[in-house]
């Protein structure tokens, strides 16, 4: 699997906070994505009802996942394709390698797939003398820079155009070094020309899937660039790399979820290309792949289905939770240290890699609840992050100081009368400490917080005292 640095989240985050270029780039997320989603949702009166329906579809699928997967497979086979069930990343990689070697493939084009990142497919193919080429513009850029994606749908969002130009100059060394690459259109034109020749030369095309349709045995991809279509139409073999939970019963169900997908992701009414692919090319077709393979990856999801994190399997990877997360806005995607970032990353990563590796991620939340409020599939992300925190505590993974503080707090919280009097004294002391300005410049045990800003001093009475007075009125 892709190498993880999630255990080092604190250092990752610190570095990200000090990276001015990254901080500028993250400004785009805060503004553009949030405004566009809000406008798209406001424009469709049925949006909330569609969210409820989309959620119900996925719940129904998860309740009957075995049946729908078996049905999907039988339809794929009936259409002349093959399904390869893979328990883990290694099995999926070996399956793909076997298919590539069956046609002696040298060059493989790739549509954007998070599963491909999850199983770290590119470095594996390279190690086996096969050249993988990412064709989504953002993925192509980060492949040249040997980086993981920093966002679910905008993988290169952490970069500015000067960094892209630098990567292109290094990679396209056959082109005139004096060419002008200062503006985005020149960069796009160069990538388009370069990738066009790769599309035409590729032996195998690998895409992901936004949906697998049990009714028809089809896979569906959603893109804006059309790269996924060229990836799957031109080579001899089309491989679809998808995880179990992508299956939906029918085309009607796909339609319902499509209505919330693009709106939640980019604020578009509909992405430019939604492509439904079924089996290999038909006998008299003039183009299309001769073979159609679906590599169906479990990688822990069948077990996750039986855990308290089951609802996270409803996720459709739109990125709305990242776009609305104050933590993501502050540190970006790479700080999360693996493939999935933001609130969904904080829930999925410990599920897939273990809480020992990724236990910090669910702690990186203010529990503001914006992620859940915009999630088209209504995944209770804050609740799940809380579950991880509970597990971290009960498995003695949190640091001793934090555990001691929590235990101390629990001691008082279980004794309400004592709690009231101690917090009352504490609030008065802090008020005195704040002086006339009402601000605390330093606090014992909270130096990490007050090193960067002042703590506003309490007014002298606790919330419970104010509440009691309110009751008497």
């Amino acid at each position: 699997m892709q190498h993880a640095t999630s255990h080092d989240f604190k250092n990752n985050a610190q570095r990200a906070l000090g990276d001015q270029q990254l901080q500028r780039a993250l400004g785009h997320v805060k503004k553009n994505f949030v405004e566009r989603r809000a406008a798209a949702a406001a424009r469709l009166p049925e949006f909330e009802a569609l969210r409820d329906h989309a959620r119900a579809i996925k719940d129904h699928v998860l309740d009957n996942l075995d049946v729908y997967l078996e049905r999907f497979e039988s339809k794929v086979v009936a259409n002349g394709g093959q399904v390869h069930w893979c328990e883990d990343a290694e099995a999926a990689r070996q399956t793909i390698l076997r298919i590539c070697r069956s046609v002696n493939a040298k060059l493989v084009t790739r549509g954007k797939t998070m599963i491909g990142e999850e199983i770290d497919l590119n470095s594996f193919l390279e190690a086996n003398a096969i050249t993988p080429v990412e064709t989504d513009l953002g993925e192509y850029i980060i492949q040249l820079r040997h980086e993981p994606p920093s966002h679910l749908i905008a993988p290169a969002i952490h970069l500015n155009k000067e960094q892209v130009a630098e990567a292109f100059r290094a990679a396209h060394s056959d082109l005139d070094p004096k060419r002008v690459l200062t503006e985005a259109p020149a960069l796009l034109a160069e990538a388009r020309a370069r990738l066009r020749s790769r599309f035409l030369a590729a032996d195998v095309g690998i895409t992901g899937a936004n949906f697998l349709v049990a009714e028809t045995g089809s896979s569906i991809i959603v893109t804006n660039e059309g790269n996924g279509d060229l990836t799957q139409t031109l080579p001899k073999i089309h491989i679809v790399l998808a995880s179990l939970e992508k299956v939906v019963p029918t085309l009607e169900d796909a339609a319902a979820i499509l209505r919330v997908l693009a709106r939640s992701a980019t604020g578009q009414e509909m992405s430019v290309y939604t492509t439904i692919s079924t089996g290999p090319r038909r006998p008299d077709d003039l183009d299309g792949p001769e073979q159609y393979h679906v590599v169906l990856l479990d990688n822990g999801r069948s077990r996750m289905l039986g855990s308290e994190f089951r609802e996270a399997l409803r996720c459709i990877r739109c990125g709305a939770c990242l776009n609305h997360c104050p933590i993501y806005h502050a540190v970006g995607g790479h700080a999360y240290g693996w493939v999935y970032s933001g609130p969904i990353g904080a829930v999925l990563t410990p599920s897939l890699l273990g809480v020992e590796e990724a236990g910090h991620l669910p702690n990186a939340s203010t529990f503001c609840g914006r992620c859940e409020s915009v999630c088209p599939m209504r995944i209770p992300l804050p609740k799940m992050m809380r579950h991880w925190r509970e597990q971290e505590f009960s498995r003695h993974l949190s640091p001793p100081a934090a555990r001691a503080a929590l235990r101390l707090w629990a001691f008082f919280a279980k004794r309400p009368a004592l709690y009231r009097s101690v917090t009352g004294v504490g609030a008065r002391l802090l008020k005195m400490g704040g002086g006339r300005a009402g601000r605390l410049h330093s606090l014992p045990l909270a130096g990490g917080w007050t090193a960067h800003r002042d703590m506003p001093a309490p007014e002298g009475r606790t919330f419970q005292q104010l509440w009691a007075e309110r009751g008497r009125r």
Partner: protein
Amino acid sequence: MSDTRAQIIGTIRKSLRRDRPSSSQQAEIESRLADPPRGPIPARGQLEPQARLQLFVAMAKEAACTIAHIADRAAVPAAVAEYLARENLPAKLRVAPDAAVANLPWSTRPLLEITTGRSDGSDEVSLTPALAGIAETGTLMLTSGPERPTTLNFLPETHIVMLTADQVVGGMEEAWTRLRERYGRGVMPRTVNLITGPSRSADIEQTLQMGAHGPRRLHIILVDGQATAEP
């Protein structure tokens, strides 16, 4: 391979705390697959024909398509020639070998160079027929087949699509109905393309740019009347 399948299915069932689903559950699934229930369809996807057509045109334009609305099929060659001249494009067209577009009266425009077949990447402009237009989002539905190679939809820089007014439906579900009428229930062509505007990318600094890998321009020729050629 089948061992892995059994293992994964087994873990799924263990997670769901049951063995095979009950026969009533199975029956529910079968009926859902045989007669797919529709979810909430936006009101704007359920308009009367005239308003539906207007919405299709408005939404397609919003998605950066251009549209020529013409009265009859015989005028398609003229509309194509006019568009190519206006956009300063070569008078050379790769046409899908589908009767709906290949058998148009091209001889009325002798200066247009017409060839049919798939694209190898050297064609600048293509013309293909649609199976449906979806008013809800201004989306075109194109299907592959021996007469409609998919490469024509993606390789040329300019893609022209012919659509007739009676092909314009309200929501996506009606487009599925057209698909099933044409191919049969549960039967699909290799590729169904739902296309909403020309190719684009915002991957560099979130700046929207047209023509990422697919066509830079998507032009729709909307013809009043019926899809099938008159005898």
